[in-house]
């Protein structure tokens, strides 16, 4: 038998280094604040952030909502906009890939709007929607739609011509070719947009909430600054980071399930 299970010792030094590095990071952070090297008006020690975290779980003051309420608000906005981006972006991209007329008409507008950073829409959004949820959803949606449209479009265009030819010889109509061949073969590309779009959405969500909101994690960060409470700023940043990572993991699992689904 050529194959045989063996136990191989992994060098443990790298794990030790990684743990040491993290410990040093938090240690130095705590130390420079406690020792007053960095004034406490500019940075909060990790311990203080942790205390505030526990407090904010139940307490709405001083910014008007508990941490859970802020997080829930942000999640709601992000998910709504993300789903809307899929619902609009994917069909748009698919049609742009398939119908010449749709591509000819939609592409110039798409290319004109694309280079505008989504948060540049904030003034218009405030005017159109006020500072409620829909203005932010609009901005996040603008950010999230781009990867879905592009990937669907490219996905359709990358369909294997041999497959189309084969379907032709069996007498399939254009519409059948589109739905039965082009869309399935574009799916992996479209799934590839899930993560990219999510990152754009999350970034712009924070931007939108910093500028026009009365609730949400971005708002929490900005309130921390206005109230001169660095621990609140840091808490908001940490939550944004953890939230982004969590949604990323969920989407990653989803993507894998979906990919496994179409392989079968």
């Amino acid at each position: 038998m050529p194959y045989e299970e063996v136990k191989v010792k992994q060098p443990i030094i790298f794990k030790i280094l990684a743990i040491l590095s993290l410990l040093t990071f938090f240690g130095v952070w705590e130390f420079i604040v406690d020792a007053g090297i960095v004034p406490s008006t500019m940075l909060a020690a990790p311990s203080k952030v942790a205390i505030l975290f526990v407090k904010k779980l139940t307490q709405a003051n001083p910014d008007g909502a508990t941490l859970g309420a802020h997080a829930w608000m942000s999640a709601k906005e992000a998910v709504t906009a993300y789903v809307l981006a899929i619902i609009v972006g994917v069909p748009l991209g698919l049609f742009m890939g398939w119908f010449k007329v749709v591509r000819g008409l939609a592409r110039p507008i798409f290319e004109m709007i694309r280079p505008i950073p989504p948060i540049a829409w904030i003034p218009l959004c405030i005017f159109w929607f006020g500072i409620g949820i829909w203005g932010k959803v609009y901005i996040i949606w603008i950010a999230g739609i781009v990867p879905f449209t592009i990937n669907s479009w490219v996905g359709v265009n990358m369909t294997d011509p041999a497959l189309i030819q084969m379907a032709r010889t069996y007498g399939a109509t254009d519409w059948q070719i589109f739905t039965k061949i082009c869309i399935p073969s574009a799916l992996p590309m479209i799934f590839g947009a899930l993560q990219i779009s999510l990152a754009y959405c999350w970034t712009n969500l924070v931007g939108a909430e910093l500028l026009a909101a009365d609730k949400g994690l971005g708002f929490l960060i900005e309130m921390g600054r206005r109230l001169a409470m660095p621990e609140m700023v840091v808490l908001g940043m940490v939550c944004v980071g953890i939230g982004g990572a969590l949604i990323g993991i969920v989407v990653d699992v989803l993507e894998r399930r979906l990919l496994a689904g179409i392989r079968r």
Partner: protein
Amino acid sequence: MTPKIVCENISKFFIQKGKQRVHVLEDISLEVMNNEFLVILGPGQSGKSTLLRIIAGLETPTQGRVLKDGKEITGPGQDRGLVFQSYMLFFWRTVMGNVEIGLKLRGVEKKERRKIAQHYINLVGLEGFEKHFPHQLSGGMKQRVGIARAYANNPEIMLLDEPFGQLDAQTRMFMEKETERIWQTEKKTVIFVTNNIDEAIYLGDRIVTLKGKLPGRMDAIYDVPLPRPREHTDLEFVELRQMITDKSELVL
């Protein structure tokens, strides 16, 4: 005459995925004479590439050793040139840039190295393509660059790892002729790995066959006393081909 290369009882194990030990080569012993064209013939997954990489010095054998001119090989060196199965051209360099890279690494002055590189580009028949990038070349042309690159470094021993494995049959036959022509022009010791019997008989002075399925083991050694250039349809060619097919589990 002492042999150029001696492999003494080489065995090789790999650790895969950090937990699985694979036995790839078992007890390989062979000798290669100076200026000999030796072909190693074996099916896929028989450790051919691994054996060649051990001789090149890119891997160390788990057991046994490789001697060159009586001295043990401990690492790669300029004395052995390797032509890779999947070309491995530097896609960011032109044909000229790829061929001259070995000389550049050794600090050969620009005018000199251009001259040498040009000589080998002409030798492999790529004159006029010096400024092309690899992606602009066909498969056969890419491997010509690979051969010129190894040659330009002026090694004593050329190691070729299924160099024409990715080419279509026609280009492949043509490249075999070219290989023979180049070898006749500048004689070197050659170890040529292939999984194709016709290629082996067409090119080899001697053929070493490996048994399929891991671990790869020596099967037999054949002398090919046919005069060059050889013809695939010659009676002796066909007979030898039949003999090797009968004796090994290789089909085709």
